[in-house]
Each structure stands twice: as structure tokens, then as C-alpha cells.
């Protein structure tokens, strides 16, 4: 399934809705969305992964990029990741650096 990353800004949050399959070919789209979000200096970065069916390490590298670009002061939330995508985040220790939640509370 084709990948999409849709950015919305609400209050101090940058929200990115990820859909489809995130691989090395689609990762630049995700990176673009992160760069656009970073330009607005959000307080939090909220990534919705409910509809993300596949994530390769190329996706993890963009999360590292996001943290390094936005700095320690911007918390990253990962919402609704499930099954193997969640497993990938946990195996690589990323769940210790981002807030992993089933649903997003304002």
C-alpha cells in the first residue's frame, strides 16, 4: 500500500498521520513532513501510526533525525502503533525515548 505522511498543526502540537508502508523509498516523504513540522517549532511531535502497516529501519532513522532536529525539549509521541511495527520500536529500544500510547490524550 502506498505511503503517506500528512502533517497537521494544532496548538503547540505537530501531528503527523502515517499510512501504508514506510520503507527506504518512502522515508524521504516522512522526513519532509518532519522538516516542515520542525520549522514551526512545535512543543510536541505526535505521530499517528494506527494505519502504518509496515516500517523498516529507514523509518527508525527518521525518528532519530526528528529527535536530533527538534532537540531534547520536544517530546515525541507514537500513537496507535500495533503488532510488528510496535515490536520494531521496542526491539530497537526506541520506546525508551518516545512516549508510546494506544490513544492520544490532549
Amino acid at each position, binding site marked *: 500500500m502506498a505511503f503517506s505522511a500528512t502533517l497537521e498543526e494544532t496548538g503547540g502540537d505537530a501531528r503527523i498521520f502515517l499510512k501504508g*508502508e514506510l*520503507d527506504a523509498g518512502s522515508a524521504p516523504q516522512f522526513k519532509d513532513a518532519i522538516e516542515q513540522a520542525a520549522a514551526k517549532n512545535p512543543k510536541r511531535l505526535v505521530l499517528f501510526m494506527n494505519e502504518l502497516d509496515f516500517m523498516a529501519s*529507514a523509518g527508525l532513522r527518521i525518528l532519530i533525525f526528528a529527535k*536530533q532536529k527538534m532537540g531534547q525539549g520536544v517530546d515525541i509521541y507514537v500513537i496507535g502503533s500495533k503488532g510488528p511495527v510496535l515490536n520494531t520500536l521496542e526491539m*530497537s529500544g526506541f520506546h525508551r*525515548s518516545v512516549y508510546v500510547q494506544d490513544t492520544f490524550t490532549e
Partner: protein
Amino acid sequence: MEPLTLPASFDSLSPLRQYVVDAARDAGLSKEATYKLKLIIDEIATNIISYGYGESGLLGDITIDGEVIDNKLRITLQDTGAEFDLSKRELPDEDELSKPLEERDVGGLGIFLTMRDVDIFEYKRIGNRNYNIFEMYIK
């Protein structure tokens, strides 16, 4: 299944994953093992495209082949990029994996994520051709 040959570009990752899904379905592999194998093939093909061909300035194809041997599904990737044995790659250790993201090194994550999930891995270089062979038990 019939082998499939695709150009070594990121556009080929999606059809390579689809090939794995089809081969896994025919072999009766579990959903969990299918995803793992799909991730392995994606990561290793990405590596071949980026380093085996891209950084070496080489152009070429990747061929994927799936077959059931005894109680295992074997997926073989063939390419003519630079020689690269994944099993000799240094992987991030527990110390690196515990670091916060702002201190992370981006290298080696893909191979780390996949090599621990494959039941059997073998690399061969014959002539100018690399063979990366992955086997998963059908349970």
C-alpha cells in the same frame, strides 16, 4: 515460485515484499513469520541497493526466488553489486540500543532487526554474484 528480477532501486522494495508475502502464503508460513521475512528481505534489499550498488557506483538487478525445501521456506536474493557479507557486519550492542535517540548512531539497525529473526542465513559469493539465502521453518 518463479524467480522475479527487478532493477536495483527503492521502487522495487514494494514488489519484493509482495513476492515474499505470496511465497509465504503458498508455503503456509504464519502471519508473524511472514512479516519477519518481509522485513528481512526489505532491509537486505535496501542494503544491496544502497551499498552493494549505489555507493559502489554499480548498476544492476536483484533477483528474488522462493522455494519450499523440506519444512522450510527459502528466499534467495541474488545481485551483482559489491561483495558484502551481512554476518560480518558489526551490530549495535545493548549499550547502543539503550541510548536516547539524540545520541544514536543510525548504522546497522536494519541488519540488527532482522538477523535475529531468521532461522537460517547463508551468504555466498560466486563469481561476481552475491547470494543471500534466508530460511524460515514452516510450523
